[in-house]
């Protein structure tokens, strides 16, 4: 038997790992996949249970096999098989019709997700069509949906860089690793080994979060915090560190805004000669920061510009409220434990705070993340190997010429939907048809109706649309609400490439598309031909990859397509080891320093971080009387959002989806392990079995994220979450100019900010 090996990657790569895989093909069929070696970097090789099971997706009996046309109501599930010609003719005719009636901007094309792997097929082919067509409905906020971009936002507001990152393996240099609000042992499995390596070398692993998960199980110390109170813990640690003098004074003086004088009048930095001013202890007067011999760190001063305090003084005052005793009351962790954690963190150098996205799924969590970054700044842990408070995702330093592919010369380009600085406002605008209507909606390779908020919101948003097209490999919950469904090719059925951290990886076509599946390039080309844009789609995937690699950026210097084709995995021209952000003390903030005090946020009352009870807080929300339980939907190892959740092998190694409830809460509701229960709130309900578990604290319930509606007796857990167009879920800071103007930081949904009640069914 002849066997061929192709290089590709994991299809469930929303964990941002993009593990390179070798695909073994025998007689046109994938026999297996396995982890592939990275050139000269054996430690980079990785795969997890999901990647190894990837062929089960390809050969899944439920794969969409041919185009479908809706014949019942939207969502009713009545379909008719149609030919590709009929599907494409119908779509093309509607495109031309709405262009005539409403303009080309009445077409919105959303085809990109962390789940659809491949620079070309996952994103840029659709973008090319959208630009060539002049599609509209692009939000001013970069994101459209979930977008866990509060950590990047906090990073932008404090350090001036939303993409600052330490590589996952940098933790081997750490003496203490704080995993804050995440579960890498299940959701970033390839990274967990580096944490274990660090532990083997003596590093302490601290895990902060409300659920006892697989990562907490490996921790030296688990801080079982009440959900969404992370800012109170971080501020209490700041308080202890300042009060006990455990901060790195030199670092704080040199690299943060600590000595800058803040005017009591307007909360802005006092400026002299156009520069932030400090109090010079020697001269006993305020001077530009670079002209003072001995700047004061603490104090209130009467300057020529009025009464001022140093920024450090203001931070000290703000943190003083969060005594460990008061914090204990808020976060539910004993004061002594908070004190000792602060002391240990300050003493362990270097120490890293790894913020995960779980920390950012509540309304006020940008404040929490800012406070965490301040902890790293106070202790001099910024800019050093093994330190930092990086964003969890490695934004690749490799620069491709994406514009050359996405926006061909002569194309009119896409149009922004004005007044949409957040995705919530964007969807509300589309629902209302303002300022212009969206009549045709392409939603390709995404399962938003399951993963991003509840169904009713989408129904209303889709209602005024004349055509909704979904392209996918399965009849997902999202595809069910389409008018036309197109069967997509999997990543093993097409040629493409990805950028994965420091590497370029070729994605090789291993088999012909099964059934009648077609690649994104084929579909967009065929549509373009029908609407008179065929001239833009005369290239092969290889042509596009050549365009991408011709960016002229030093990171791809000498990396031709031919080289990528020969070597499959190529490291970008990047410094090795990778640069540690801010190693040279260079901060791209307005002041050039770490802005733990951010004067642009004075208008929001958030110049310094603090704890504010979250939107649906059991302590603050008026809903708490009826819905006393915090409703979480944490990720699990067998699924990546909804990908792989329909694969038999993943179900075989997982529990069925259960509602995890603390025995104390269960007893109050007369619920026994295995009983049918209904979890509900004003937005929706889900029926499933209960699992009595100490892994969730009293007052909180958890349903694992990812499982499809078919696996629940009634409803779906996502129907308890907020609507995507819910304006009450907007954090105004994330709609500010600074954040909206950044390429990554943005607003996002608040999936962990929901209250519910549970009753026996």
């Amino acid at each position: 038997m002849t066997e061929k090996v192709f290089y590709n990657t994991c299809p469930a790569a929303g964990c941002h790992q993009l593990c390179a895989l070798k695909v073994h093909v025998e007689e046109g069929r994938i026999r297996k996949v396995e982890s592939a070696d990275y050139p000269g970097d054996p430690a980079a090789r990785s795969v997890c249970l999901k990647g190894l099971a990837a062929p089960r997706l390809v050969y899944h009996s439920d794969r969409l096999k041919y185009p479908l046309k809706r014949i019942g109501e939207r969502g009713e599930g009545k379909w008719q098989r149609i030919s590709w010609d009929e599907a494409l003719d119908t779509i093309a005719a509607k495109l031309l019709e709405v262009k005539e009636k409403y303009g080309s901007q009445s077409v919105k094309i959303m085809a990109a997700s962390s789940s659809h792997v491949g620079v070309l097929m996952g994103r840029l082919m659709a973008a090319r069509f959208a630009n060539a067509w002049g599609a509209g409905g692009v939000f001013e906020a970069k994101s459209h949906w979930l977008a866990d971009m509060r950590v990047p936002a906090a990073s932008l507001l404090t350090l001036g860089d939303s993409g600052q990152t330490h590589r996952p393996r940098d933790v081997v240099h750490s003496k203490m690793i704080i995993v804050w609000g995440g579960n890498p042992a299940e959701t970033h499995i390839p990274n967990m080994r580096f944490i274990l390596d660090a532990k083997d070398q003596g590093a302490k692993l601290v895990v902060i979060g409300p659920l006892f998960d697989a990562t907490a199980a490996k921790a030296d110390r688990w801080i079982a915090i009440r959900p969404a109170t992370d800012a109170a813990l971080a501020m209490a640690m700041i308080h202890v560190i300042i009060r006990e003098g455990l901060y790195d004074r030199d670092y704080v003086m040199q690299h943060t805004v600590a000595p800058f004088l803040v005017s009591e009048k307007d909360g802005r930095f006092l400026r002299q000669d156009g520069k932030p001013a400090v109090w010079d202890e020697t001269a006993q007067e305020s001077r530009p920061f670079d002209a003072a011999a001995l700047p004061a760190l603490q104090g209130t001063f009467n300057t020529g510009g009025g009464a001022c305090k140093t920024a450090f003084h203001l931070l000290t005052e703000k943190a003083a409220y969060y005594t460990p005793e008061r914090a204990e009351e808020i976060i539910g962790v004993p004061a002594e434990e908070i004190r000792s954690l602060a002391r240990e963190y300050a003493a362990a150098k270097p120490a890293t705070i790894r913020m995960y996205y779980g920390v950012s799924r509540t309304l006020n969590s940008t404040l929490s993340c800012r406070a965490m970054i301040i902890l790293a700044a106070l202790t001099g842990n910024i800019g050093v190997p093994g330190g930092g408070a990086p964003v969890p995702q490695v934004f690749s330093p490799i620069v491709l010429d994406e514009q050359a592919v996405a926006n061909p010369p002569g194309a009119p380009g896409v149009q922004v939907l004005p007044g949409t600085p957040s995705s919530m406002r964007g969807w509300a605008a589309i629902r209302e048809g303002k300022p212009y209507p969206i009549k045709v909606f392409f939603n390709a390779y995404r399962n938003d109706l399951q993963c991003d908020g509840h169904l009713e919101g989408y129904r209303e948003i889709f209602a005024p649309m004349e055509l909704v097209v979904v392209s996918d490999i399965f009849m997902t919950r999202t595809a069910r609400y389409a008018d036309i469904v197109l069967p997509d090719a999997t990543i093993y059925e097409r040629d493409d490439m990805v950028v994965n951290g420091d590497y370029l990886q070729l994605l090789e076509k291993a088999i012909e598309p099964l059934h009648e599946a077609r690649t994104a390039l084929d579909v967009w080309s065929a549509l373009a031909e029908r609407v008179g844009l065929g001239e833009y789609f005369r290239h092969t995937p290889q042509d596009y990859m050549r365009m991408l690699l011709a960016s002229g950026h030093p990171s791809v210097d000498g990396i031709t397509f031919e080289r990528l084709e020969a070597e499959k995995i190529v490291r970008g021209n990047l410094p090795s080891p990778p640069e540690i952000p801010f190693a040279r003390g260079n901060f791209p903030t307005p002041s050039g320093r770490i802005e733990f005090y951010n004067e642009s946020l004075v208008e929001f009352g958030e110049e310094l971080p603090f704890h504010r009870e979250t939107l649906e807080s059991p302590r603050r929300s008026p809903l708490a009387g009826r819905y006393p339980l915090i409703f979480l939907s944490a990720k699990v190892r067998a699924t990546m959002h909804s990908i792989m959740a329909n694969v038999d092998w993943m179900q075989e190694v997982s529990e069925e989806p259960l509602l995890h409830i603390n025995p104390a809460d269960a007893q109050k509701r007369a619920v026994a392990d295995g009983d049918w229960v209904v979890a509900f709130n004003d937005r929706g309900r889900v029926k499933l079995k209960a699992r009595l578990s100490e892994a969730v604290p009293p007052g909180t319930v958890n349903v694992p994220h990812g499982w499809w509606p078919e696996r629940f007796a009634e409803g779906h857990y996502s129907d308890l979450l907020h609507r995507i167009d819910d304006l009450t879920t907007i954090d105004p800071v994330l709609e500010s100019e600074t954040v909206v103007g950044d390429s990554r930081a943005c607003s996002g949904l608040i999936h962990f900010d929901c209250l519910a009640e549970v009753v026996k069914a």
Partner: protein
Amino acid sequence: MGDRQYSLAFDERRCIGCRTCVIACKVENQLEAGSWMRVLTRGGATAESPAGTYPGLSLSWQPDTCRHCPDPPCREACPSGAVYKRPDGIVLIDREKCTGCRICADACPYDAIRFDPEGYAQKCTLCSHRIDRGLEPFCVKECICGAIRLKGIRRTRSTENGE
């Protein structure tokens, strides 16, 4: 080779319960349902729940499969002589000789014997087909946290270890 006694070593400290080994075993041995590898949990009353009361909790995992015992009770028990041990220590079951009587399963102290859809006994072969080609067992290769090692041979991540 004769003095080598291959078997697997499990490191509970490095096991995160991810089940990649369980899937790897299915992949390599083409097991549609079930796996010769399983993950044992040490915790509370139900599968993945911890022992203790919130927040004083503990939970740990350990991969588990055939130990390739020095003196295998399954070999002892098999009435048809289907179980044998290779000179390198690997314990295998000869499907031709197996009658499906299931006596081996009762004899195994580790509950490591499975049965194929036709009722014949099967279990971890230590990927002897890979070992014979100088490769590690597939679960060892793909255990991302290094919780499974092949004893009797030095394991290196630095070598190209594909096919």
